[in-house]
């Protein structure tokens, strides 16, 4: 049977792309929430 390296690359590639994209989505959303929490007006309202 031929080696079919392209199929191996496709399987590992698809897996890597999906996992990294999902991880990056989590990281970005966490940063957005952190930015939302640390907004200046919220800090001001807490201080007052």
């Amino acid at each position, binding site marked *: 049977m031929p080696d079919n390296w392209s199929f191996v690359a496709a399987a590992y590639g698809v897996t890597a792309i999906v996992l990294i994209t999902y991880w990056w989505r989590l990281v970005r959303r966490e940063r957005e*929430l952190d930015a939302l929490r640390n907004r200046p007006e919220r800090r001001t309202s807490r201080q007052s």
Partner: protein
Amino acid sequence: MIRTLGWLSVVALVAGLVMSFGVAPREVTQGTVQRIMYVHVPLVISSYVAFIVLAVASFAHASGEIGVMFIGLGIATGSIWGKPTWGTWWTWDARLTSVAILFVMYVGYLLLRGSIDDPERAARFAAVLGIVAALDIPLVHFSVYWWRTLHQPPSLMKPGGFTGSTAILWPLLVNLVAFVILYAYLTARRARLLRAEAEAVA
């Protein structure tokens, strides 16, 4: 803790890649395409773990999301393996059909959780679906024994234990451990994010 899990999963995944491409031999009948098994099998077994955890743990939503991603990738990698090996991307045999049903049920689980505004009601209704869907896991796993299927019997978790070469078993086990650690990391991170989102809304 989550950061440690993250680095641990990176190290384990790199070790898994080394085992898959550096240590595991070229399989005699299938050739190089058999190396897809080192990612396909761990993805599917890790998704079983995710769905079982979903049925019993408080971080069910996070576990379900990662499980759906893993089983989706398991189906995709299996399909990519199937084309050169079986000559088709997909066939409606018992294993593939039951796993497709499993995937659709857990996508439904996530949709149900997302479609109800009250988080407690959403969790309660979705939990019922999650438990019912979990009943499909043994059906998927043993379908290759109960029906005549194109899909081969399981490599791991089968009656009588693993019967192949240890040169294939070790890469499979290392990758399985890597994907279970990755599952734990992503689930912990997603659960923390879900909590933060709930606090932000409140």
